[in-house]
């Protein structure tokens, strides 16, 4: 073969190989979704979708079994909202501090620390939550168990924080330096510049950071299973044990019979989770694209 032709062939091969890897990642997601649908949808032959989503009791092994996941959805929502309420203000403030205020050396140290926080396995964070935070909350509020929605929220806040801080920090750093100079040259103080110009220009990126942080919280399983107490009841407050969608799948998959209704119900929960995270990622993506434009 002539060198020119060989070069062309090589180009072609590399191009197609890259294309194929790109296509595969999409295909895998599709396949996972199809698999979830195939396993999960069989539940709805005997059960209505509304009963499943809005049913108040989750008794998968009583007879007859009851597959209402409302307590689980509310458990996930409660823990997630709690975690967001803690991690979003702290995370955004930390991002602004790191990007705008911290001197260079402190900045590097903080960034490294936050990346380290992201690297801690969730089971370790769950362990710390269970051993130290749980008893502390139990004593503080004088309640029978320390494994509550609040414990889950605090634990998960620590897990969402690295995502929020690092993405929000990127967004703040990406704000052109000239905006700051223009504001300062007009007589703005450091704080006015940070809050009114920099934070506003970085807002789409910050929203994306928050959404991805929340996505992480909703999908988290191990830590949340260890610290929330796992009671599948409709919660009425932050100081009650709750069970999340993810923890239910993880806890019960081992004891369900493959092909049975319980098994299908767990997959149906998977579908619900998939849709929730898909929506959250979609919103985050929307904002990320807007911030790049």
């Amino acid at each position, binding site marked *: 073969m002539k060198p020119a032709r060989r070069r062309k062939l090589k180009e072609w091969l590399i191009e197609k190989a890259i294309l194929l890897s790109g296509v595969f990642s999409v295909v895998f997601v599709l396949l996972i979704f199809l698999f979830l649908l195939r396993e999960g949808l069989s539940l709805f032959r005997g059960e209505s979708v509304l009963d499943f989503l809005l049913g108040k009791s989750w008794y998968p092994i009583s007879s007859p079994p009851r597959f209402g996941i409302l307590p689980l959805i509310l458990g996930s929502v409660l823990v997630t909202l709690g975690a967001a309420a803690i991690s979003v203000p702290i995370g955004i403030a930390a991002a602004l501090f790191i990007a705008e205020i911290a001197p260079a050396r402190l900045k590097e140290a903080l960034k490294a620390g936050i990346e380290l926080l992201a690297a801690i396995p969730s089971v370790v964070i769950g362990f710390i939550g269970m051993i130290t935070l749980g008893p502390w909350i139990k004593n503080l509020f004088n309640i029978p168990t320390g494994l509550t929605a609040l414990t889950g929220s605090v634990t998960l806040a620590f897990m969402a924080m690295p995502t929020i801080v690092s993405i929000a920090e990127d967004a703040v750093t990406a704000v052109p330096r*000239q*905006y700051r*100079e*223009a*504001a*300062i*040259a*007009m*007589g*703005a*103080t450091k704080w*006015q510049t940070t809050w*009114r*110009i920099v934070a*506003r*220009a970085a807002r789409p990126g910050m929203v994306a950071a928050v959404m991805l942080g929340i996505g992480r919280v909703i999908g988290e399983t191990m830590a949340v299973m260890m610290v929330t107490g796992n009671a599948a009841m409709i919660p009425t407050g932050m100081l009650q044990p709750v069970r999340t969608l993810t923890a239910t799948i993880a806890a019960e998959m081992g004891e369900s019979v493959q092909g049975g209704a319980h098994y299908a119900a767990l997959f149906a929960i998977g579908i619900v989770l998939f849709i929730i995270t898909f929506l959250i990622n979609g919103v985050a993506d929307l904002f990320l694209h807007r911030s790049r434009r």
Partner: protein
Amino acid sequence: MVAAAAKFAISGLHVHYGKICALRDLNLDIRAHEIFTVIGPANSGKSTFLNCLNRLIDLAPASRLSGEIRLDGVDIRAGLEVESLRRKVGIVFALPLPLPISIYENIVYGLRMQGIRDAAVLDEAVERSLRESYLWDEVKDRLRSPAMNLSGGQQQRLCMARILAGRPDVLLFDEPTSGLDPISTARIEETMLVLKEKYTIVLVTNNVAQAARVGDRTAFFLMSEMVELSETSRMFTTPVDQRTSDYITGKFG
């Protein structure tokens, strides 16, 4: 003719960035209502000089100043809050820097920051400052559209309007037309000639011809020092220093 009062009085000004000397022993006065132009090659210290006048120099890491700068007799480093100095001494940069908000919001931004909320006051300031920068007729029907949609020359005049809205005393221009086409440049220059009736203007420019067109007095900076300062017409006809003559005739630069 009455002798014009000194707006800025600068004496014994030295500026260092770390160990590098950026300005050496500068002594000069800037008179009220003149266009004071500063010319010189890159790295001659002319932008440093400009940034001293509104203390943007404070933002540069490891910058050190010695000497004295007085604005209307007040020491700008001791007798004046830095934010109010910067409101009095506005700057227009080389590249137009509209904020990513609407035309209207760009102009009232500084006023809002000062706590002015009254819509009538803001509207008045927008119209006045846009008329002063000769942009009003072009944008009056689309004040709410994003400032980023304006052309380069319009953006630069918007930046002027943004400064004018705060009723400054002095306008600093840091090579304001270096990114603009000749027609936009001409409009900015015309605008400056009108604005000097109300304001004092300091113009730093790479464009020697521009200094000759609009300047009342011109200073020539070279290698961190002021070589010559004289009436613009005199500098461009009978420069005293050989280096000035070489620079303005294009022998180096």
